[in-house]
């Protein structure tokens, strides 16, 4: 357990901050919970996808005649069955996506842009028939030269993926197309003056490999397209409304004709913030007239769904002898995969977000490559740039013989400081997280031979945005909380807790559900660490409306003014001295009389939540390196984070521990490996090595609570910040264990043994 700062005894809160059992828990420990692939319909067909075996190829022709002849094959679709969309930026709530690119990523048109790119899809009565049909679809390719390495893709003689792509963000519009989709710069102050004022200047070049979100549940959906055009989709995603919008756009349908029901989701981490299967399943269902189920294999998940960028980065830092950072020059080159849209923008904005630096220049390049289009992955872009910057800061600390935490404290952003990305910080808990690790026994614990201790920090914005929540009071005084946000990590229980807190009900009396797109108002998807903040705000406001309504009804019953009614401990209390005999009216009592006091007691609130509070994390990692085998063992890990206010501390800890584990995998063993032809060589959990239980120690979370005044209970987002520091925390620990700086992730045994031999 973490040493969560327990509620002060005088805290008025009864539910928020406790650790109740999640209401969906029993279904999940008994196998009853219905995930994407667990849903079935009578007469359902099996849908499968034909994928490009080439990293880059012109599709000359697709012949489906023989495949259609296979007994049991009911439908075959190719790009010809989808509208050829115009390039259109659509702001789908999250970061903007280009609808044409989205549609082309679901189904290749004219060109296959990566190994595994969908070129056709089949629906048949059996999986065997579908497989046979896939074999018989004849696709003629003209194989083109491919490029995957980000710097090779940037060179002028690289194969160009998109003839229409001209670099954005240059002074003058370029004459020729390029794989560089965008150049973005963030700058402040006078870089030259900053370096001139420096006593030491450190330069470094850092690289990271593309890594996958690695959710254990493969993408899955069932889609039914009725003759009247009414569509039903059941799918596992981070947002049923996102699925509805994207399906409508990709297929040219009316959103009102698509009803999307969210399945339980088996992990997403950002990777399920877009669609791959749903539009194809709908198209197959439209053509066949039967419901179609599609479930990806693990190999398909790796080859064809979003990893995050591999990157090359350069960092130059200048500092005075006493450790004041005077200048920072950061260059970030991120792989976007087959279509523009790497998280280099967020990578740039977060790169220096923990530091108060007068003079800096950050240049970011968004570069398309012949690999799967990247998708969001937990604090998109931030862990990558943090690996470079936090490694450089550690080198600076070594050079200056300064304690790495002290160096960070000396340059720390605080309230009132202008963030590198613009706004001025308010109510941030960064210094508090630094103090939390500095004062933790871990930081003073002895270190053995071949062992090292690394420190790194991280930042994530956290976002707000559109959310809807409804609260319904049942006739017996219990309540239902309805939201439109899939529950990936236990957010449902937090929603119920916030409603219970406001209504004065025990948590057991509040049932939270995640509704389909026809049963609740629009909500942006679950991502950006927004759900507990933004949807929680909507839930709280809806519950407060219920309380106001209940007070009105009680006032009516007592014939007093509403102001003379107080809501306390789940009951209305009459404050009017003239009504001293008025007994409190419990929620149950008022619910029982609802018919006579104005009808059903319900409230729905929709809002665009503003004022999300940023998250800061500070981590300590101890490693031991086997100098002969190059194997790194994580000995101990402590992670402090400002979460504003922990609504359900156990799930806050879980988010921190899970983020750390993913970051450790990223640092040590995870990477996309491509062969000479650009085909992924390790598209499975055997050779794409996510951490297993025996790879990790207990991960100790420290919950720091600097309340966010814009949230009713002070909550800030939690889920993303914890994956930002670990890449560098591990690398910094390895540096101190072996005395050599490793700048190229992952830190796999062969690389470590090689540098040890070279030292």
């Amino acid at each position, binding site marked *: 357990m973490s040493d969560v700062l327990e509620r002060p005894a005088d805290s008025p809160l009864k539910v928020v901050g406790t650790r109740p059992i999640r209401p969906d828990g029993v279904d999940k420990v008994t196998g009853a919970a219905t995930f994407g692939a667990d849903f079935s319909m009578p007469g359902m067909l099996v849908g499968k996808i034909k994928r490009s075996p080439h990293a880059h190829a012109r599709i000359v022709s697709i012949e489906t005649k023989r495949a259609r002849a296979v007994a049991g094959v009911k439908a075959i679709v190719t790009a010809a069955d989808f509208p050829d969309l115009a390039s259109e*930026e659509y*702001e789908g709530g*999250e*970061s*903007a996506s280009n609808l044409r690119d989205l549609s082309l990523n679901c189904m290749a048109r004219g060109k296959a842009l990566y190994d595994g790119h969908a070129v056709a899809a089949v629906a048949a009565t059996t999986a065997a028939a579908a497989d046979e049909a896939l074999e018989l679809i004849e696709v003629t390719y003209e194989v083109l030269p491919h490029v995957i390495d980000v710097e090779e893709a940037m060179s002028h003689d690289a194969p160009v993926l998109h003839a229409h792509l001209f670099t*954005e*963000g240059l002074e003058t519009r370029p004459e020729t197309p390029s794989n560089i989709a*965008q*150049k*973005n*710069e*963030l*700058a*402040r102050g006078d870089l030259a003056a900053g370096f001139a004022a420096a006593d030491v200047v450190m330069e470094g070049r850092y690289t990271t490999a593309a890594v996958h*979100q690695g959710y254990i549940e493969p993408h899955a959906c069932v889609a039914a397209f009725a003759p009247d055009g009414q569509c039903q989709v059941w799918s596992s995603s981070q947002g049923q409304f996102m699925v509805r919008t994207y399906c409508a756009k990709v297929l040219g349908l009316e959103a009102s004709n698509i009803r999307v029901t969210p399945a339980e989701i088996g992990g*997403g*981490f*950002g*990777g399920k*913030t877009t669609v791959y299967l749903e539009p194809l399943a709908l198209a197959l269902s439209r053509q066949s007239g039967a419901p179609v189920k599609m479930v990806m294999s693990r190999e398909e998940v790796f080859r064809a769904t979003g990893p995050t960028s591999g990157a090359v980065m350069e960092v130059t830092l200048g500092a005075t002898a006493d450790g004041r950072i005077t200048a920072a020059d950061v260059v970030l080159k991120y792989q976007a995969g087959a279509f523009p849209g790497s998280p280099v*923008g*967020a990578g740039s*904005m977060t790169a220096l977000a923990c530091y108060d630096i007068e003079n800096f220049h950050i240049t970011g390049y968004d570069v398309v490559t012949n690999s799967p289009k990247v998708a*969001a*992955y*937990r*604090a*998109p872009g931030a862990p990558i740039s943090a690996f470079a910057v936090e490694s450089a800061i550690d080198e600076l600390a070594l050079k200056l013989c300064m304690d790495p935490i002290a160096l960070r404290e000396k340059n720390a952003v605080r309230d009132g400081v202008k963030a590198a*990305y*613009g*706004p*001025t*910080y*308010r109510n941030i808990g960064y210094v508090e997280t630094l103090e939390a690790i500095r004062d933790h026994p871990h930081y003073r614990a002895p270190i053995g031979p071949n062992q090292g201790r690394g420190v790194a920090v991280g930042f*994530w*914005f*956290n*976002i*707000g*945005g*559109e959310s809807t929540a409804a609260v319904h009071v049942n006739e017996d005084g219990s309540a239902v909380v309805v939201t439109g946000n899939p529950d990936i990590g236990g957010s449902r229980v937090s929603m119920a807790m916030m409603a219970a807190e406001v209504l004065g009900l025990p948590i057991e009396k509040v049932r939270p559900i995640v509704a389909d797109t026809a049963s609740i108002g629009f909500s942006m998807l679950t*991502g*950006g*660490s*927004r759900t507990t903040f933004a949807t929680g705000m909507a839930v709280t406001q809806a519950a407060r409306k219920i309380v106001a309504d209940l007070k009105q009804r009680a006032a009516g019953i007592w014939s007093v003014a509403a102001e003379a009614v107080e809501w306390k401990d789940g009951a209305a209390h009459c404050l009017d001295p003239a009504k001293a005999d008025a007994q409190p009216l419990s929620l149950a009592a008022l619910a029982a009389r609802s018919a006579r006091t104005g009808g059903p007691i319900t409230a729905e609130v929709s809002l*665009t939540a*503003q*004022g*999300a509070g940023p998250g800061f994390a500070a981590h300590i990692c101890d490693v031991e390196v086997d100098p002969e085998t190059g194997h790194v063992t994580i000995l101990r890990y402590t992670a402090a984070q400002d979460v504003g206010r922990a609504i359900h501390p156990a799930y806050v800890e879980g988010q921190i521990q899970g983020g750390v584990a993913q970051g450790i995998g990223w640092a040590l063993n995870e990477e996309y490996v491509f062969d000479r032809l650009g085909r992924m060589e390790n598209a499975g959990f055997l050779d794409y090595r996510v951490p297993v239980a025996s790879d990790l120690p207990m991960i100790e979370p420290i919950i720091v609570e600097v309340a966010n005044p*814009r949230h009713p209970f002070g909550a800030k*987002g939690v*889920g*993303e910040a914890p994956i930002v520091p670990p890449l560098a925390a591990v690398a910094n620990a390895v540096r101190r264990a072996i005395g050599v700086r490793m700048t190229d992730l992952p830190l796999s045994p062969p690389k470590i043994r090689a540098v040890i031999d070279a030292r």
Partner: protein
Amino acid sequence: MPRVVAIGSAARAFTGGAGEIEVEASTVAQMIAVLESRFPGFGDHVERRMAIAIDGEIHQDADGAILNPHSEVYLFPRIGGG
């Protein structure tokens, strides 16, 4: 007059390189309209692609948000997340 600061080259490409612009506006919606009229395409770019920080607080899709005469408005790329 509220001061609009466009950091990032993508935004500055619309303003002819200008990083700071004084804008006569009392709401975000007005500010966007003014930017669009002064720098064609910029208002649209801000609406679609940019997040807005008013005196340090990040707003997204906040047309109605109030700007006071001394407000400092930062424009920067929209943030998504995992």
